[in-house]
């Protein structure tokens, strides 16, 4: 992690930890808790979209697998919650690995359709296997998470569980990007053939990033299940995949802070603007289209760039900008 990101992250963490003392409404805390879960999914997805150059429309399925595996194993079978979360992550990761092997090697965008097809199969299973999943009416009565005597049952206490995990994931992601694997990922995203020539196993790397992003999705799903204590197939439909991909696009592909921004914006905005909520399908489609057409690198990086251009003295110029005069 570089110095700038360390400072940003410290500031971010302090703000995050202070917010519950300023916001008294449980409703807003709930929105922020959901935002934190979305950040976990979106950061994982962004590592994949931004660096592997592929689209996944199956993250709703990974999120859902985490939730349902946790729900079924802890509530029906009675396994302890925390190890089950890890187990769910392992299972989801294995499934992603199996899907990733054939599709990530192919040219074109087979993975979009493969992940989408997979997520629809998962959704059909959630609805049809009602003995196991509760079917369309959902799965109630999932226990809250706890550590020792502390039970994360309220919005306030869960806030102090989910946000530290979220910040932990951010630290992990920043460190990953600065590591050897991260540099390989950067090489892969800028030129796959050149990366291959430099000795990077690009196929294996893409699969690894895909599995990592699926595992993060599963983690968020498990946490969601233990937070809300009730899950139903609707939450994990195709539209969730669209929501998280839109958050990635708004934030900018490959930008972790962008993902945080995108997830926060698109989780909070519908709660404030009810127009967005009522026409959510239309809004998400419109946002995806417009942002991609005009800011293919993402809305957040586009805005940052516009800001830098307005104040050239405040920021050092990049080589490209110097050349352009």
């Amino acid at each position, binding site marked *: 992690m570089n110095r700038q990101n360390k400072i940003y992250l410290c500031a971010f963490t302090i703000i995050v930890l202070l917010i519950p003392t300023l916001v008294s409404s449980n409703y807003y805390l709930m929105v922020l808790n959901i935002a934190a879960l979305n950040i976990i999914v979106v950061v994982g997805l962004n590592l994949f979209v931004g660096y592997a150059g592929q689209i996944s429309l199956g993250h709703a399925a990974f999120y859902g697998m985490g939730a349902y595996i946790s729900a079924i194993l802890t509530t029906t079978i009675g396994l302890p919650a925390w190890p089950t979360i890890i187990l769910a992550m392992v299972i989801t990761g294995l499934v992603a690995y199996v899907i990733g092997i054939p599709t990530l090697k192919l040219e074109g965008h*087979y993975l979009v359709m493969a992940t989408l097809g997979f997520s*629809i199969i998962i959704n059909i299973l959630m609805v049809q296997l009602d003995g196991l999943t509760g079917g369309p009416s959902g799965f109630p009565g999932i226990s809250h998470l706890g550590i020792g005597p502390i039970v994360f049952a309220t919005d306030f206490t869960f806030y102090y569980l989910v946000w530290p995990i979220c910040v932990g994931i951010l630290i992990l992601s920043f460190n990953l990007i600065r590591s050897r694997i991260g540099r390989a990922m950067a090489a892969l995203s800028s030129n796959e053939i050149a990366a291959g020539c430099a000795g990077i196993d690009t196929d294996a790397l893409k699969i690894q990033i895909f599995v990592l992003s699926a595992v993060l999705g599963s983690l968020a799903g498990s946490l969601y299940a233990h937070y809300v204590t009730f899950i139903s197939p609707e939450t994990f439909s195709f539209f969730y995949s669209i929501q998280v991909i839109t958050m990635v696009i708004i934030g900018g592909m490959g930008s972790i802070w962008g993902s945080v921004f995108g997830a926060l914006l698109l989780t909070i905005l519908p709660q404030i603007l009810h127009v967005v909520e009522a026409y959510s399908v239309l809004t998400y489609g419109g946002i995806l289209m417009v942002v*991609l057409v005009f800011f293919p690198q993402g809305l957040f990086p586009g805005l940052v760039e516009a800001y830098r251009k307005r104040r050239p003295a405040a920021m050092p110029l990049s080589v490209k900008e110097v050349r352009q005069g």
Partner: protein
Amino acid sequence: MNVFTQLLQFLFSGLTTGSIYALIAIGFSIIQNATGIVNFAQGEFVMLGGMFMITFFGFLKLPMVLAFFLTVASVALVGCLLERGPIRHSRSKEVLILVMITIGASIFMKGLSMMVWGKDTLTLPSFSGDTPTIIFGAAVMPQSLWIFGITIVIVVALHLFFKRSLLGKALRAVAANRKTAMLAGIPVHRMVLFSFGLSGALGAVGGILITPITTTSFNVGLILGLKGFSAAILGGYGSMPGAIVGGLLLGVLESFSAGLISSQFKNAVAFLVLLLVLFFKPSGLFGTKHLRRV
């Protein structure tokens, strides 16, 4: 009803939906060949086909033939608008971005349709009544015969178009090599526009034909599009005969598994087929294209 007639019955109903999948799969192939992108909005064209037909025929009470052609023209126009608008103006020409733009467009169309036509399930009357014809003991609805007939006419017309007409040859040239086609004086941009219009028209026909059987609503596009895509992959992506065979085969597989195993998982069959083909033979049945990246 003995086992034979029952199987025959499944076969007919499979071929009926299979024909629609074939039309969608051809739409995917045409855009894939002209631009190299997967047009995610293909399924929405089918949904719009049904919706426009309901508007023109059901609400405005236009004569059926007129309503049919108006619908096809309207959805072809939507296809052209998709190309002229977001695809053409995209700042980035990367395939990843363009595919995502079509995903956005497809969600947008779905949202717009929900506002215009509401959330209810809508339907159309069959073209010529509901008195089934009995073939070897199996009942075939007149709508199925219409679907077979129109699909065959379209496939033959497309074949002649691509082989004989100058426009069709130009499109094939663009598919074979974009730059060389440009050097040969073919207006590539106009060809791309045309391919979007043609895919829109094909989707519309599919939507008009299938709505009397399956009904429609604002959200059927995704599943239909994905099934058409599975059909295209099964046959070999980008191949026209592959799209037809893939579509019919998928329809039949679906119908048999629904009839013989369980109808609950009918929708899962197409996607299972998709995943299995991608696993074991990504080039599909008819695909000769080398799919491996570099």
